[in-house]
């Protein structure tokens, strides 16, 4: 059992949880992830370790409610427990002093790129951060990114905050201004990572993406997370999750990630309906009590 020692709601569907996991806190490096099973009936969910505190023995996770299991996880409160947390998993990001690098986070991907930006800064790089979101209230970790980056550009799709446009628009500007970018690290929705890869491909700027394929055990046992990189079969959980963006077969991956779309939707809808009923029942109950 892994205790939730703190919780902060970042946005309506986005929660930051601090979890007690001393062994993982001690071992984790930038780019590592954990697999969480919150409840007995829950799925095993892979989550990037955003931060850790070795002294307190805690790790920080940021969870976006997408399906049923993740919705339950974002609704859990301080003092409650996750049944299982295992890690740190995956290959850590290779961190070197390269010069000028760009770290791009789209949506909840900002939480995942933040520890990499932090490690790259510590290694002596000049780090330019690009934080993208659909709209203002979904921009996360701007302050944290400001602390570890030399410069941060915020973009929103609707222009409600920062620059109006996509992260790739900001990236193009940076590429115009900076003649010698040594590396780009992009984490976000799959189409965003593919767009970043296409943006940097002509200039052959080394670009890394952290892939989020369907995953189950996270230990190399099931092969659900297999991806084609440079024509070779790779397991994202043990060989990745980071890969050379210019060599990833995104089309195949995007199609594979839709495998359970129907079931995920069905499961979430049923769950939300059940929750609504419960709220309704509770209200009726209260009303009766007053009566």
């Amino acid at each position, binding site marked *: 059992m892994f205790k939730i020692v703190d919780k902060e709601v970042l946005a309506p569907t986005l929660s930051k949880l601090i979890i007690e996991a001393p062994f993982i806190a001690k071992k984790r490096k930038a780019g590592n992830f954990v697999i969480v099973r919150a409840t007995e009936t829950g799925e095993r969910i892979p989550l990037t370790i955003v931060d850790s505190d070795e002294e307190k023995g805690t790790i920080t996770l940021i969870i976006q409610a997408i399906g049923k299991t993740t919705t339950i996880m974002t609704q859990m409160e301080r003092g409650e427990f996750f049944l299982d947390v295992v890690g*740190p998993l995956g290959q850590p990001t290779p961190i070197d002093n390269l010069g000028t690098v760009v770290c791009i986070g789209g949506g909840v991907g900002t939480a995942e790129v933040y520890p990499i930006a932090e490690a790259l800064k510590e290694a002596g790089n000049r780090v330019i951060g690009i934080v993208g979101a659909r709209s203002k209230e979904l921009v996360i970790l701007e302050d944290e990114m400001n602390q570890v980056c030399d410069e941060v550009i915020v973009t929103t799709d609707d222009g409600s905050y920062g620059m109006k446009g996509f992260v790739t628009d900001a990236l193009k500007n940076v590429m115009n201004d900076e003649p010698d970018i040594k590396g780009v690290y992009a984490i976000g929705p799959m189409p965003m990572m593919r767009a970043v890869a296409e943006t940097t491909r002509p200039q052959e700027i080394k670009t890394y993406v952290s892939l989020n394929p369907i995953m189950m055990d996270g230990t190399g046992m099931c092969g659900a997370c297999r991806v084609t990189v440079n024509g070779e079969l790779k397991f994202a959980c043990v060989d990745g999750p980071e890969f050379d963006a210019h060599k990833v077969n995104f089309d195949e991956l995007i199609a594979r990630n839709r495998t359970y779309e129907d079931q995920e939707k069905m499961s979430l809808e049923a769950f939300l309906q059940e929750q609504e009923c419960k709220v309704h029942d509770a209200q009726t109950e209260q009303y009766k009590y007053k009566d």
Partner: protein
Amino acid sequence: MRKQNNTNTKTNGKVNPLKPSERMKIPRHLPIEQGAEIRISNFEEVSQGFNFELALEEAKRCLECKNPVCVDGCPVNIDIPGFIQLLLEKDYQAAIEKVRESNYLPAICGRVCPQENLCEIVCLLGKKREPVAIGKLERFVADYEMAHGKFTPPQKAEPKNQKVAVIGSGPGGLTVAAELAQRGYDVTIYEALHEPGGVLIFGIPEFRLPKHIVKEEVERVKALGVEIKTNVIVGRTITIDELFDELGYESVYLGTGAGSPNFLNIPGENLSGVYSASELLTRVNLMKAYKFPEYDTPLKIGKRVAVIGGGDVAMDAVRTSKRIGPEHTILLYRRSREEMPARVEEVHHAEEEGIEFQMLTNPVAIHGDENGWVKSIECQKMKLGEPDEKGRRRPIPIEGSNFTIDVDTVVVAIGQSPNPVIQQTTPGLETTKWGTIIVDEKGATSREGIYAGGDIARGGATVIQAVADGKRAAVSIHEYLTQVREENKKKAEQVAES
């Protein structure tokens, strides 16, 4: 040793009044089974085993050979005539205790052991008639004990005050832990997944090995004082060297199995709708996807499923798929039926359940539709050539014989390779070119104090082989730690003298 056991337990026909010639006339008894029509729509156990009457009747068939070859046929040398004799005496508790002397996981092995190739194949009765149903009798006494709750943990030796770490809680790890705990060691098992049992939990389906049976056997290991820590990936959460240097373990057993699925490397293998058998089975067995949406983990099995392979895992995968309810379930295997490595019983069960077998068929490509979903599988016809080094006839492709089968789900069950995490993070641990850990005849690896067995050393074997390796390694670890104790004692004496 064994002979003595036999004289102790044998009553020379007092219990069994039948003459050998009469015993030979009794036909082998069949276990009670769920009918194929019914069982394909549920996940409950296919075989219900023997009831009291059947078990006693079957036990009467044992010839009580003076030189019981079945004991040598058993990889862990269970005193088979001994426990059968006790069963006949209706001392069921003594019978199960007799089995447990040699095998700490009888309810599991009684179900999944390939007895037909081990103890039963050498049974003298089988020369002219059918062999005694030893496996079903083992299962009977184990189930008897579970139903009547008379288990008391065996006596433990004096505490040795030495710690042993066992990596992996599959059949091998559980056996090593049980053996060493009985010898007085402090044993901790580290398991990567959230539930102990390894392949017994995530691999073998509920209908062949109910999970409550595994859980109960695990509890019996814990009853010896063994601690099981789940959610620890040795090599990631903690390394082998940290176990030695920081946590004070004096010996480590690696029983991590061969868990990394192999793929065919043919076009289309990453389309949606293509699973490894490991993924399919883990979703169903460990994550209970067959209970979706009560459990959150989904599984998508279409209308026409093709499972590729001919081993036990392929049988488990194809029979699991069948129970999810597709219209057609086909097994594709590149050799012929005779070469299939799967247990005869499982092949027979699969056939009864309406699985279509397509032999001498080798997949060469998987084709997808416009959404990236499996649409069909292209195969090539094969013929059999000369036997290979294992004596199995080699499949040879027939030129120009390609054909396609319409399917929407493909399951690849062509074997597993060792997971490399421990090998990569443990300096000095020697491996073969296939990634298996090299061990000597005692189960010792190239690193002092580290032992290994089961699939991580063999590449792909059986539950009982893992149990046998575990027993062998436990003896070696005991010898090693005894030596360490003696050396430490000598050193302490020398210090005291000086």
